[in-house]
């Protein structure tokens, strides 16, 4: 399986994401500069964390109107797994691939520590390696991770079963404790916490590895025929 990590000016978790796939998962992965990117040959798209375009205007806003996002939208429509973490989630919200928006953290502080996430769905291509209700330790690192959507959108998220991760102890004011959501089709996941920083016990937690393994397993079930 071949992963693309999209690198924008200001991305800073691209190497962590690369490391998680290459060394944690053991699959093929490229760092792909956003300009003139050709995503045709990739089986999964990873939008890493950081501060694309210095968070100018709004987090993720300027990256969301770059050309590479048109390709990512087409890949997403075709069913390719797209994972946006932190700034990657903000970019997915700004493009409209996922509903809602990010506000400044309720207490205005940039927060960087482990949080306990509750796995709300274990039937997505990103979370089949977890069990529903499982609590996992994943670090957060953000100043604008306060998920906001209006009442109608929240209701829709619940109805369509799009809430994948919630915070056990909401750190930032996110509505309904939301830490991660998927699109209706289930192949675009956005989350503020960083699973790519939790793929080795040596560094504190390996609870994020199952996410990458889930994506790989899904891909194998879809495309690899065994005789």
């Amino acid at each position: 399986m071949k992963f693309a990590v999209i690198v924008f000016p200001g991305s800073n978790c691209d190497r962590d994401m690369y490391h998680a796939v290459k060394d944690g998962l053991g699959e093929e992965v490229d760092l792909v500069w956003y300009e003139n990117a050709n995503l045709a040959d990739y089986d999964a798209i990873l939008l890493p964390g950081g501060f694309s375009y210095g968070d100018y205007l709004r987090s993720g806003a300027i990256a969301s109107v770059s050309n590479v996002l048109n390709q990512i939208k087409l890949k997403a429509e075709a069913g390719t797994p797209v994972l946006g973490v932190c700034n990657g989630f903000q970019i997915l919200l700004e493009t409209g691939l996922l509903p809602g928006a990010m506000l400044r953290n309720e207490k205005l502080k940039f927060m960087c520590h482990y949080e306990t996430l509750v796995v709300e769905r274990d039937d997505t291509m990103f979370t089949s390696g977890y069990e529903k209700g499982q609590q996992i330790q994943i670090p957060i690192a953000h100043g604008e991770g306060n998920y906001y959507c209006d009442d109608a959108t929240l209701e829709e998220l619940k109805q369509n079963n799009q809430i994948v991760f919630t915070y056990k102890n909401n750190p930032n004011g996110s509505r309904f404790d939301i830490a991660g959501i998927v699109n209706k089709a289930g192949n675009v996941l956005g989350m503020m916490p960083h699973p790519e920083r939790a793929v080795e016990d040596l560094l504190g937690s390996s609870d994020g590895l199952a996410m990458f393994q889930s994506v790989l397993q899904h891909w194998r079930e879809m495309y690899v025929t065994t005789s």
Partner: protein
Amino acid sequence: MKKVKIFITLKEGVLDPQGKAVQEALQANGFPDVAETRVGKYIEMTLPDEADVALEVQRMCDKLLANPVMEEYSYTVEEGIRS
């Protein structure tokens, strides 16, 4: 040229943690009556005289400058600006 001044603020009802912090600082510094403080963005630009400002500004705001999920915008236009 036309000079366009665009003001973007969080929608009413959307929590504005920055506005709240600014308000509390003002109240603690001798302005106890300050209420409903909102922090927003101000963007200015020029467009050619023949531009359809209403249409262009609306498209710019919807596409990039404002996020309709949480923000709203207004603008003013000054005509006949010399470059």
